[in-house]
């Protein structure tokens, strides 16, 4: 047993010595699965590079970028003015690239009779103005609102675009990841949640309409790619300065046909080809 441990430690150290470049990727929980798969694939073709990926929320990634603790920040939202200013103060030249698309889906429990919601209704539910399902045409029951922690890019995006910067209801349960939100709604008949469309099992999507007159659209790869689905967004990678060397190679690979195809396979929405090519660094 001791020998095995010793040998394994030696082996591991040997591997550690062999690896030349380490790339750190941190940030969005929405993006983390994609980042991990990209890292896995890329490392298969480039064994001298070691990429470590962790989540924690877009805010975490941005903070890490500003603190100098990561090479790539994954974010499901753009940086705020405050953050751009902080970066500048710290001498960090932020470089932003869209690497995939995403739609924020509204999750409903499969037993819920409601299938469509408008922006106004969503805003009312999430700010606490609307508290009962019957107010939006459903059963007479309290709406249990599931939300994300405030370091989530999804949280911030939802707040900006659906809530018009209003505060979430204090009764919104904050969960640490889209997965937790999906999990919660799948077990809660009266629950409602939101999150990236790449994650839904056991829940159904609500068709969302911007106003009562608009057609309600279900989120899908097509509707997000075309922009039809009203809560669509870019998923970003932020760098400190224009990426060079191994970082540049990784970025270009992710934006390549192979990388984007992989994204599509794990339920992310790939960028339209022209955009992907435009984002690559020559």
């Amino acid at each position: 047993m001791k020998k095995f441990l010793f040998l394994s430690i030696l082996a591991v150290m040997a591997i550690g010595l062999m690896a030349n470049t380490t790339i750190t990727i941190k940030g969005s929980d929405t993006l983390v699965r994609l980042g991990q798969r990209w890292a896995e694939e890329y490392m298969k073709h480039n064994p001298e590079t070691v990429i470590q990926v962790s989540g924690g929320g877009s805010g975490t990634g941005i903070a890490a970028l500003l603190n100098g603790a990561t090479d790539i920040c994954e974010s499901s939202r753009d940086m705020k003015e405050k953050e751009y200013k902080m970066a500048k103060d710290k001498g960090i030249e932020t470089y932003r690239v869209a690497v995939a698309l995403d739609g924020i889906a509204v999750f409903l429990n499969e037993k819920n009779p409601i299938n469509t919601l408008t922006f106004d209704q969503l805003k009312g539910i999430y700010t606490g103005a609307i508290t009962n399902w019957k107010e939006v045409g459903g059963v007479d029951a309290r709406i249990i609102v599931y939300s994300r922690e405030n370091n989530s890019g999804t949280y911030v995006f939802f707040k900006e675009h659906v809530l018009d910067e209003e505060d979430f209801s204090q009764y919104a349960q904050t969960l640490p990841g889209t997965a937790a939100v999906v999990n919660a709604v799948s077990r809660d008949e009266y629950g409602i949640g939101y999150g990236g469309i790449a994650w839904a099992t056991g829940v159904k999507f609500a068709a969302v309409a911007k106003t009562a007159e608009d057609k309600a659209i279900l989120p899908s790869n097509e509707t997000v790619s075309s922009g039809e689905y009203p809560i669509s967004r870019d998923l970003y990678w932020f760098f400190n300065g224009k990426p060079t060397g191994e970082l540049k190679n990784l970025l270009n690979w992710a934006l390549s046909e192979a990388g984007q195809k992989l994204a599509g396979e794990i339920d992310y929405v790939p960028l339209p080809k022209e955009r992907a090519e435009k984002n690559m660094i020559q």
Partner: protein
Amino acid sequence: MKAHESTISYGHDLLATNLEFKEKTRGLIPRGLTLAAVILIVLMLGVIMFNVIIGGIGIISWEFVSHPPEQGMEEGGVFPAIFGTVALVILMVIAVVPIGVLTAIYLHEYTSPTSKITRLIRVAIANLAGVPSIVFGLFGLGFFIAFIGGGLDWLFYSSEGPVWGQPAIIWAALTLALLTLPVVIVSTEEALRTIPRELIEASYALGGTKLQTIIRIIIPQALPGILTGSILAVSRGAGEVAPIMFTGAAYYLPYLPSKLNDQFMELGYHIYVMATQSPNIEATKPILYGTVLVLLVLTFLLNFVAIYIRSSMRKKRAA
């Protein structure tokens, strides 16, 4: 017996039986209630362990403990988390045991129980034991990473990005060492108290210096207690998550920690992230339960060993 005496004795018997009855029943209700408390506690402990065992036993296998996670934590094993936990506590023990033991020896051999410095140290120990674990996490971030790590970077590595001023296994280990220091000190002190004073006095009488006595007599005699303390510290350190969340633990790393400034995967942290953030909770549930089972088994095993050593030490003292 004369008549009135027999009446008295009869009365006595009656009273005695009465009292006996009252005695038995008066004690019964509190006895029953408190026994209920004990049973309830045992029951809850049983429910937890039962639930974890049933949920996790299916997935425990050699593959589980020797393979890394695959397919987004839905398959594979938890070897890197086990490796990381072991590496972490080894570093922690190297840091905490010498300091803890020396502190206990100081309190036992170098000072009197009433001196001011002794009291101060004891107060510090007691309070260290009560500091919330997240505060240790803040401390690890603010002191080890920002101050010491940042300072090292500024002194030696100002050109590159952060080398030491970032989450690393060494900082996590040192943070945990501070957290478990009271455990080691208390256990060692308990062991020191079992050493017969005559042995120590004999050593001094034969011309041994304080240091010689400590090295040749005291430490060897206190070894069971030191061992107990180390084991309890390891058990505690392997289970704490809040102190390592920001000082080095990571959810998915493609490599095992091999340098002191590497990050690491860890069982407790893995459980936390998997339980709250995994994409497909049904698919990861078996692995989640399995990981919990591994951590629990590890913890309980360590505690059993420590309890055994401690009780045999106590029996030796009583003898």
